[in-house]
């Protein structure tokens, strides 16, 4: 059951083959079993079971809210969740319990989704490995796959088993691992410079970064306001489309969301690609690209071509400047966004009474981690 698509599970729930509570229990027990992955910072068991109860009532009355009603989900720990601790994997926000829900979280809850918990990440979403949070790194579920086990046994002997694991990529590593390990059907991540797509690739799941302005950032604790978007992680593309359909749309609380109305859509089933033109940016063929990735890339291009699509070379001439621009924008916006963490209104505060400045300095030194760029 846990391996099904959203539509399949939704149908099963409607038909009574399984109840939301049963589904919830299954996921919760799997979360416990896969604790070694360290994908979850907070498991909201009570909340989820209560939500399951409500969902069950709705299904009994035949009044389910939609495709996501009764479906277990997980949320990256940099989204504000009302009444549930939100840490951003940082000492600075350890113990911080927000009084409001992020818009995207609210939208999912309004659809009847069951919140399994808050997932692990790089501290404040700054990182690409999910290794730099204060709760420790997230382990890629594929570390425990047969293929990987075999490979490891061939390479080395007598090495401690639990020190040899693969990273999930980041910063939404916890969400990606949670989806990849079947502990939920979809998870929210965030994407600034690849933080949803990167772990999705590492964990073998679908990671969608919506276009900036399509999905509300209200409640997403920001890293780079000009680039952050909430990201969607699922096990198949169709599921990602369903979730996007729920999340997209103008939010009056976020002035950077597009005002145009968003119409719900269904992905077309693409059987004929002969009218499709696929561009391969030539600048992306960087010398640092690993041969494994390059061969997979070629494989995908060839797949399209063999099915009749047009595959051509295109140019994105400013590609080489993108990373330096990113660094300038990223560092300035991060410095700005971190300015609010001073221990005064919420979060960690150091008990230094000499002066306000001294308290700020001590609080921020203790609360923040080192940045590894």
């Amino acid at each position, binding site marked *: 059951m846990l391996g099904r698509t959203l539509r399949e599970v939704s149908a099963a729930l409607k038909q009574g083959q399984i109840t939301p509570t049963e589904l919830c229990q299954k996921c919760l027990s799997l979360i416990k079993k896969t604790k070694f992955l360290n994908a979850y910072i907070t498991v909201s068991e009570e909340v989820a079971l209560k939500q399951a109860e409500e969902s069950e009532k709705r299904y009994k009355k035949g009044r389910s809210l939609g495709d996501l009603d009764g479906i277990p989900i997980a949320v990256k720990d940099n*989204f*504000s969740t009302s009444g549930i601790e939100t840490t*951003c994997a940082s000492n600075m*926000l350890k113990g911080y319990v*927000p*009084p*409001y829900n*992020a818009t995207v979280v609210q939208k999912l809850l309004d659809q009847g989704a069951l919140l399994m918990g808050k997932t692990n990440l790089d501290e404040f979403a700054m990182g690409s490995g999910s290794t730099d949070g204060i709760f420790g790194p997230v382990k890629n579920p594929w570390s425990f796959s047969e293929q990987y086990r075999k490979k490891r046994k061939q390479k080395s002997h007598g090495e401690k088993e639990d020190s040899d694991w693969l990273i999930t990529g980041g910063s939404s590593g916890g969400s990606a691992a949670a989806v990849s390990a079947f502990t939920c059907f979809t998870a929210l991540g965030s994407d600034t410079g690849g933080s949803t797509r990167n772990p999705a690739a590492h964990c073998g799941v679908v990671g969608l970064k919506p276009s900036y302005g399509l999905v509300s*950032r*209200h*409640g*997403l*604790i*920001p890293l*780079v*306001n*000009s680039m952050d978007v909430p990201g969607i992680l699922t096990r198949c593309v169709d599921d990602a489309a369903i979730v996007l359909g729920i999340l997209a749309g103008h939010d*009056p*609380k*976020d*002035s*950077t969301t597009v005002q145009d109305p968003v119409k719900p859509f269904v992905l077309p089933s693409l059987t004929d690609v002969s009218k499709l033109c696929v561009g391969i940016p030539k600048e992306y063929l960087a010398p640092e690209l690993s041969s494994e990735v390059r061969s997979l890339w070629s494989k995908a291009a060839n797949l399209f071509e063999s099915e009749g699509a047009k595959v051509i070379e295109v140019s994105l001439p400013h590609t080489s400047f993108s990373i330096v621009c990113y660094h300038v924008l990223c560092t*300035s*916006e991060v*410095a*700005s966004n*971190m*300015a*609010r*963490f*001073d221990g*005064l*209104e*919420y979060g960690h505060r150091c008990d230094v*009474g000499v002066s*306000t*400045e001294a308290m*700020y300095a001590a609080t921020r030194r203790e609360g923040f981690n080192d940045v590894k760029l």
Partner: protein
Amino acid sequence: MAAPVLRWLCPGRCWAFARIGGCSCHGRGVPTASTSSGKRGQSSVARQSLITAQEPRKGDREWAAVVGLEIHAQISSNSKLFSGSQVHFAAPPNSLVSFFDASLPGTLPVLNRRCVEAAVMTGLALDCRINKKSLFDRKHYFYADLPAGYQITQQRLPIAVDGSLAYSVCVGKKLGQAVTRTVRVRQIQLEQDSGKSLHDDLRSQTLVDLNRAGVGLLEVVLEPDMSCGEEAAAAVRELQLILQALGTSRAIMAEGQLRVDANISVHHPGEPLGVRTEVKNLNSARFLARAIDYEIQRQISELENGGEILNETRSFDYKLGCTVPMRDKEGKQDYRFMPEPNLPPLLLYDSASLPAGADPQQVINIDRIREQLPELPSVTREKLVRRYGMLPEHSFALLNEVGLLEFFQNVMKETRAEPKKVASWVLNTFLGFLKQQNLAVSESPVTPSALAELLNLVERKAISSSAAKQVFEELWRSEGKTPAQIVAEKQLELMQDDEALEQLCRATMEAHPQVVMDLKKGNPRAINKLIGLVRKATLGRADPTAIKEVLERQLSG
């Protein structure tokens, strides 16, 4: 105006000198003028110059002062600039704080339409160019009352630029000698107010109240076109009246709704401008001119003593009456300005550029706002002068007190007395009583109708004007009585019986032949004595002018 050497060239009436001379923070810097005329208090410019001309000193060159202002006005709106929490004065601490105001992570700013309209209205009233596209920026610094660690303001491209503000200053001692000056408005920008910190030295702690954090401010930047405290105070006063007329800010300095920072420097005319200091947070109308003049004088003294002026920030110590340095001298603060990424550019339209089918709730039309602008104080004054033949200074006085103009107009509605008379009663008698008891116009025990009735009695010659003053006093004291009632009670009616008056005059003259003889001899005071005697006989109910007329007629005939 070619005001000759006085140490410092101020075309206005700068009697502030004499006041400041006594400040102990001065040191040697007591100007010549004040030592000689200090005892006399206010002196006119011309007189002072005479004095100094007689005592030439070394290095006695002219000084000119240059004053620019940054004025912060709290926008009168229901909610804050970027969040929905309410705006109230003196609410319980931290009771008007939304998640955004407290800088909870993940919250985002949403622009308040009313604040934008207020900025456009103010820009139009000050003849500014309204920028159809303006931008928001972050200004970073760490302080307890700035929860986010930055303030959202408009540094790169503010909402309005290049305007002007006309104000009036008195030159010379007489009231009627007022001139109009203008100061250029560099820009008007929208920005957030900060919270309030209260320093509790007893317990070594600072208490932070965020009620004010995020309230919308209009910052009006005035170019350094002013040259002394009086001009600055007059400009601020006029701006206050404009804001109040527009309704964009209540601009009450005592409630912190209008705060002024001054940039001050001095130089010798013809030479480049001097180093400027910034005097911050001048929050009292009364001390504004004084503080600026003090700083000007301090700088002059410092430079004449061979010292130099530091480009620093100072504040005004109200108790000591002098400016003191404020910030740590760590060098200029770097605010690390950065575009505010959560707010798209603010786009305004006019009727020509308004997109078709635009939702009127979502767009702002500058032309519409211009059409609906309330009447500005300068126009109101002009109308008063034209309509009533009023003296300009009376028009100023009427607008200078909240509710006074309305009171005057209400009286005018119900009386046919001459506007000048009405103005005089309102500005002298009525206002005098108000000020004595520290009341606002709205708290006046005398209604416009009552005053109108009183004036009508005088007009009809039912009572004399001196009797009217008595009636007014009684009106003020006792609630509910009408002027007619009081007149009847106190028997203040003027004698209407001409015959009786004629008889009384004749009788009085007969009874006092000595006085009549004095009068015929040419003693001018005799007539007044006679009038007084007749008045007494009439129990004060005859108009002295009428008595005089009858007496003179009887004497000549």
